[in-house]
């Protein structure tokens, strides 16, 4: 996604959407005025859309009802860390999410390569199967998995939810990787085969090495899904010290519904990692995961 396109300075006169070329001079003034109207419109819309997020941030740094501080304060944040298990929840969330990202990409990349390069009946059948599976409600598999995992001691266990996250991100991740591999010309691999490289060798040395953008998009997708999940967490996690952040925020919110400044401080802790990922890697933020890979394939 090119965030710079619109900000790119134009040397010529500025046109409206589809102003005819011959009326350039006449339109440039009207176009200029239209530009600022549109700027005002989008500014207002963006401001309204972001109200819930701004409210969260402002409240998180506003002194609480019992506080003596004035102006903006970090008191709520430090309170949340000292009075709740926020640090543990953050750690749990980071562990499960990062493991999900690593394993999901490690499973999806080779599978995506086969989906991209193989064109047998079995391969396209598998591609359909992955596609159907990603669209099914998690609630259907959650109940049987709960019984299976209970027998294996994986309920109320971070490994248990990580396995489910890997399973549920893997389908879309495979499609995303396949869509990216489609864009890598096979001639690159052919060159390496001439040099005596095996298929596996060319996959790791040629294809993967050229796939960083695809890997990052897939990783971001898996990160957001695992970080934001609530349904799997609410079913599988029981004890406070095993909670991930969504459970932590939710349970804290239910117990302290009036202590908004602390609730919002915790919410900010949860919101920060995805926003950092988004801010630093935003050009790899693909069109909503599956959407981009579907439109691209």
């Amino acid at each position, binding site marked *: 996604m090119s965030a710079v396109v619109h*900000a790119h300075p134009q040397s010529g006169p500025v046109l409206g959407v589809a102003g005819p070329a011959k009326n350039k001079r006449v339109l440039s003034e009207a176009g200029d005025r239209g530009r600022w109207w549109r700027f005002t419109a989008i500014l207002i819309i963006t401001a309204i859309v*972001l109200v819930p*997020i701004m409210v969260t941030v402002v409240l998180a740094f506003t002194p609480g009802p019992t506080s003596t501080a004035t102006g903006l304060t970090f008191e709520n944040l430090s309170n949340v860390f000292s009075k709740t298990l926020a640090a543990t929840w953050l750690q749990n969330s980071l562990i499960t999410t990062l493991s999900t990202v690593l394993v999901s990409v490690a499973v999806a990349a080779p599978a995506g390569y086969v989906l991209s*390069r193989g064109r047998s009946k079995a391969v396209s059948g598998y591609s359909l199967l992955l596609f159907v599976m990603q*669209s099914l409600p998690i609630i259907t598999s959650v*109940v049987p998995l709960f019984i299976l995992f209970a027998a294996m001691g994986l309920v109320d266990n971070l490994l248990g939810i990580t396995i489910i996250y890997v399973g549920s991100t893997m389908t879309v991740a495979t499609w995303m990787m396949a869509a990216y591999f489609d864009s890598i010309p*096979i001639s690159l691999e052919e060159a390496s085969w001439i040099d005596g490289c095996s298929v596996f060798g060319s996959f790791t040395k040629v294809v993967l090495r050229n796939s960083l953008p695809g890997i990052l998009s897939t990783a971001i997708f898996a990160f957001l899904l695992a970080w934001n999940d609530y349904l799997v967490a609410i*079913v599988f996690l029981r004890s406070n010290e095993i909670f991930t952040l969504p459970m932590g*925020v939710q349970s804290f919110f239910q117990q302290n519904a009036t202590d908004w400044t602390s609730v919002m401080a915790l919410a900010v802790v949860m919101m920060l990692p995805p926003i950092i990922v988004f801010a630093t890697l935003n050009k790899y933020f693909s069109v909503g995961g599956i959407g981009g890979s579907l439109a691209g394939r």
Partner: protein
Amino acid sequence: MTTTTAQSGLSRARKGIAPGGTGSGNRKSKLSAQTTRTFFWLLLPSVVLLVLIHGYPLIYAAVQATHDGDLLQTGDFVAGDNFAKVLSSPAFWKAAQFTLMFTIVGVFGSWLVGLGLALLLRTKIPAGGTFKVLLLLPWVVPIVVSSTAWNWLVATPDSLIPSLFRNLGLGTPLFLADPNLAAITVMVFKVWVSFPFMMMMISAALASVDSTVYEAASMDGATRWQQFSQITLPLIARSTYISWILMTIFCVNDFPTIYLLTGGGPVNATTSLVVLAYRTVFQDFATGPGVAIAFLMTMTLVVISVLLYRQIRKSSVE
């Protein structure tokens, strides 16, 4: 020919041609067998996970839906009793109705907002790129966080937005306490969460449209509306179709957006099928009927996704 190493196996696999055929067949088929073996190992971890996390639970869910067990034991076989019980309960149909409304509003609401913003952001606007990034935030911020914020904004009569209404002399709407209003609030929340996805899909489709098409059209005297309906819409039709069906899947499967804002209430006004299935299993401990609900949804979604898959295949061949 020195290039008949792994390449032949791959290009064959790509075209779906059986090994053997032209040239020194013996050597080639051996090599493509090697390619097949590599493919097998590359695919294996994914297959194992798919069977464990998707295949096994789906089969076991079919077992549970036809038994009267609970979370600890399978129970006795009751054939279609659970389905009959579910299909004859008013709660199921009420939830199905809400899910339908929620999905229609979620899909078309977010599409309209996303389309409007994508068209606006496509024009030259100072700092347009920054706005584009900022407007994606509702999609990036965790639902747990945004639902908390929405709660703060609308939950009680003294929250910010009800107070605003009161000060404007519009009464004090109880956004989460009034059944109809709560349903609307949840849908607006869903549109707020989802429009960035639509905006991204449409922006990506619009980016590939050649702007000279518009110049030619306006030289021929086409109005703005004609340009939009005759050029823009047809050109983004494919990605619009894909985004509609995907959003339908997202909406039908949605749990946190609804559950975290209203918990399915008041008086079940915002109970969707997923929320109903979750409550039936984990709050009423009626595993059979709960899984039966999930199973009915699963069947519907299989149909929807196969339709989508075929459409994608068809249009990528064109």
